[in-house]
């Protein structure tokens, strides 16, 4: 195949033909409540070469509506993580409870459309527990970069 032929093809079609899709840099979107975690926790991940990690900080996890999560997937995220305060420790009282319900709803929607819900995860992190968050992101990134089941991301 000539390079000029590929030029004519839309992005995904070209990737499918060349097999570049498998080599594409995996993307991860992280939404976090600023009351649960500090920005500094995520800094080491935003400058990784093997994966693209986008971090969105929020005044409360309840600010994440369904559309933000779906748009993250539309923008190419392979994995979306949400870090919220534990239920009962939310500064805005019921934020974490509502976030849990919203994430459950979006997970069901992802199942319904055939994308699978495993790409969306919610973690309740106690205030300042950056170590746990760091470990979770490391694990998720490792799964993305070298998937254990060999299934396409």
């Amino acid at each position, binding site marked *: 195949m000539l390079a000029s032929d590929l030029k004519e093809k839309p992005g*995904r079609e070209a990737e499918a033909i060349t097999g570049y899709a498998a080599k594409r840099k995996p993307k991860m979107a992280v939404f976090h409540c600023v009351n649960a975690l500090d920005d500094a926790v995520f800094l080491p991940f935003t400058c990784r070469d093997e994966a693209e990690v986008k971090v969105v900080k929020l005044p409360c996890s309840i600010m994440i*509506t*369904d*559309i933000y999560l*779906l*748009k993250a*997937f*539309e923008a190419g995220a392979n994995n979306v993580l949400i870090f919220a305060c534990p239920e009962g420790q939310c500064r805005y009282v019921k934020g974490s409870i509502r976030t849990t319900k919203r994430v459950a709803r979006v997970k069901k*929607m*992802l199942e*319904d*459309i*055939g*994308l699978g819900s495993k790409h969306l995860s919610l973690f309740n992190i106690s205030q300042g527990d950056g170590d746990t968050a760091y470990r979770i992101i490391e694990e998720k990134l490792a799964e993305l970069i070298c998937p254990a089941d060999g299934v396409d991301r």
Partner: protein
Amino acid sequence: MIVGERKPIAEIKEMVSPYERLLVLGCGTCVKTCFAGGEDEVAVLASALRLAYRKSDKGLQVEELTVERQCEDEFIQEASKVVSCNDAVLSMACGAGVQAIARRFPGAVVLPGVNTTFIGVLEKRGVFTEECVGCGNCVLGEFAGICPITRCSKKLLNGPCGGSRNGKCEVNPDIECAWSLIIERYRDLGQMDNLRAYVPPKNWSTSTAGGPRKLVREDHMI
């Protein structure tokens, strides 16, 4: 308001599968209030459909628009340009809105994205309850402002029946006994004597039994 619920994604996917360009058209009035077909729900559904078809061979281009009210022609007109650019319109309005779109755009394929459920109220956040069947002959004045035709499972005009238990209906313990509510309300109002009055059978000719209804306001017609 008219309360509706978005159809399951699987059903919507099957409906839109023959088309390549789809307009998801929302309505910013009743169905927005009940989180079924407003601007936010349109964005979520459009995004979900784009994701659903992203991996399939057959692509689906999804456009979104929300008009203020789909049941009024003046508001629908602003959608005419986008309707003509798409193969089909997935209307997120109630049944009236879907039909108004079909009437306004005879050449467009119009599909329903919402199951219109009932006329109701927002009882508390996230809970909508049916309060009116639109019988065309309101009798709420005779029942302390609580409609037994809508809220009594047996539609009794001279209740309660023997199946009322602790203020709940025997049909379903989640349903409040309408007649229990009527009696309580009359007690609070000091009008218990009203319960002595016999209510004759209702005239149903104003309801849907006589076919589709029409309301004509001569004073508003030109």
